[in-house]
């Protein structure tokens, strides 16, 4: 319990640091937000008035506090470009990106864990070797390149999906999920390869440890108890890795959304970055960072539950 509280404290500290960094980064950028909002043809009086209204004349800490409290309440300010509240712009896109990341994550778990166990079990066989080499190759393919190839092969030649034919979840959930299947594959592929490799290595290491050797030599491997033990121990590093992967998948969707013309979070993020629409960028970045930090916290907790031996880091 003490452990969880300490981790919780660290998580909140990290979140605070992230928010300060993000806020500072976007405050030091040259350029006047009021001017960006009103355009260059606005009169000086109106500019001054808007600056006042936006609270830009207040000292930095006050502005940070206001921004941070707004963020917690879900108020992310107004987009410079679209002049609408940022929250409204983002909320409708979240399910798109999250569904894709979740599907990719599910695929990763469903495929990599059995495959990892399989290769570990048949360590050294030609099948194992083949899978390792294929793994290496898949890891070397940039996701957007596999995305292009998938679009070409499955979309254009086999006609299994309509490239660019994204259907929003508000229109038809079934077709929405179906369209996201192949993009999810493109995101999941390298992650599957990495997880298989990791799980395989971890399983082999565990099986070589003293306790399993002893157990084997006593002939204790018939009822699967040992198997479960090894698997459980071997899964610990894999879970940490999968936790980080989930965050990576959200980031991986940035490129993949572009390849498959999906109007999700990433599309908004990219255009906002190049349009210097900072309130939107800040909100999305804070959002993703929060997800990552919370996931990492949960991973730490799960880790602890699986393996109570783990003490505090460097204590």
């Amino acid at each position, binding site marked *: 319990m003490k452990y969880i509280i300490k981790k919780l404290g*660290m998580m909140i*500290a*990290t979140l605070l*640091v*992230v928010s300060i*960094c*993000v806020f500072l*980064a*976007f405050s030091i*950028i040259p350029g006047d937000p009021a001017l960006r909002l009103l355009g260059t043809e606005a009169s000086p009086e109106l500019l001054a008035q808007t600056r006042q209204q936006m609270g830009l004349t207040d000292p930095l800490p006050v502005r940070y506090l206001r921004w941070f409290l707004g963020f917690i309440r879900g108020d992310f300010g107004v987009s410079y470009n679209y002049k609408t509240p940022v929250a409204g712009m983002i909320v409708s896109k979240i399910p798109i990106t999250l569904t894709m990341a979740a599907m990719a994550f599910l695929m990763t778990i469903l495929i990599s864990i059995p495959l990892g166990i399989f290769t570990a079990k048949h360590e050294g066989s030609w099948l194992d070797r083949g899978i390792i080499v294929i793994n*290496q*190759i898949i*890891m*070397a*393919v*940039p*996701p*957007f*390149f596999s995305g*292009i*190839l998938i679009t*070409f092969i499955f979309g*254009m030649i086999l006609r299994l999906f309509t490239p660019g034919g994204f259907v929003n979840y508000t229109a038809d959930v079934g077709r929405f999920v179906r369209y996201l299947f192949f993009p999810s594959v493109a995101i999941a592929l390298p992650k599957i390869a990495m997880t298989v490799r990791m799980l395989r290595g971890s399983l082999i290491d565990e099986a070589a440890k003293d306790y399993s050797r002893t157990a084997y030599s006593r002939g204790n491997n018939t009822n699967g108890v040992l198997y479960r033990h090894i698997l459980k121990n071997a899964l610990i590093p894999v879970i940490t890795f999968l936790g980080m992967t989930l*965050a*990576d998948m*959200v*980031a*991986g969707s*940035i*490129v993949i959304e*572009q*390849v498959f013309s999906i109007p999700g979070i990433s599309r908004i*993020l*990219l255009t906002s*970055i*190049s349009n*210097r629409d900072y309130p939107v*960028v800040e909100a999305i*970045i804070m959002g*993703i*960072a*929060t997800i*990552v*930090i919370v996931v*990492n916290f949960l991973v730490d907790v799960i880790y602890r539950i699986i393996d109570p031996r783990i003490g505090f880091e*460097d204590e």
Partner: protein
Amino acid sequence: MSKVGKKLKKNMRDNPYLAAGLVITGMVLLLIIVGLFWTPYEPTAMNAKEKLSGISLRHPMGTDNMGRDVLSRVMYGSRITLFIAMGTVAIGAFAGTIIGAVTGYFGGMLDEVMMRIIDAMFAFPSILLALVIISIFGTGWVQLLVSLGIAFVPSFARIVRGEVLRCRNMDYVENARLQGVSDLRMIFVHILPNIKGVLASAILIGFNNAVLAEAGLSYLGVGSQPPYASLGRMLSDAQQYMFTTPSYVLCPGIVIVLMVLGFAFLGEGISRWK
């Protein structure tokens, strides 16, 4: 020398990863090195009569939509990609090692604060962190190099810090400390050389991640500017000609894959070096 040669020969035979890694990396490096001095055509030279031609003797990788020779552009582009990846890892490894070593060695408040900042940076997947930095500094390959470099600092800092923590309490460090060795000397002379193995593998992995990240960001159009193109940028330009001239898409793509694969095999091979 001959001893190393013999050992290499033996390893090459027993260790297919090493062999494959050396061959593939060698091929890519050859392409880049030759490209430094000579390319079949000027990478930006256009030819209206040879737009989007497929693979031929005149153009071993075909031409692009401006009639430029894809091979020459790939030779040039892989140089940019390699350069950015190396620069990224150099920045990341250098800054990361110093931060990791210092915080790990001294501990205390400094460590606590730095680790929160590193944690905070870790909350951003590297591609996202790079995008944020680019959104502040603007687009271009210098910005791309710097932002990716910064994005790679936390992972190196963490690895090195962990290793330094492990070494800090070892006997030899204790002994040195008793002999009155200064802190800086301790870090750089006694501890860091002991973790070079871990660092080396981190650099190889980091290098591959950097190639992939650079390609991804260039694909998004925030990297190198036309008319010169890194491999990722070429792919994004080529995507629309997939139907008419598949070679234009496949060649740069395959070169990226080979570049990453070569180094991955090399890393795998080195770890199995006997």
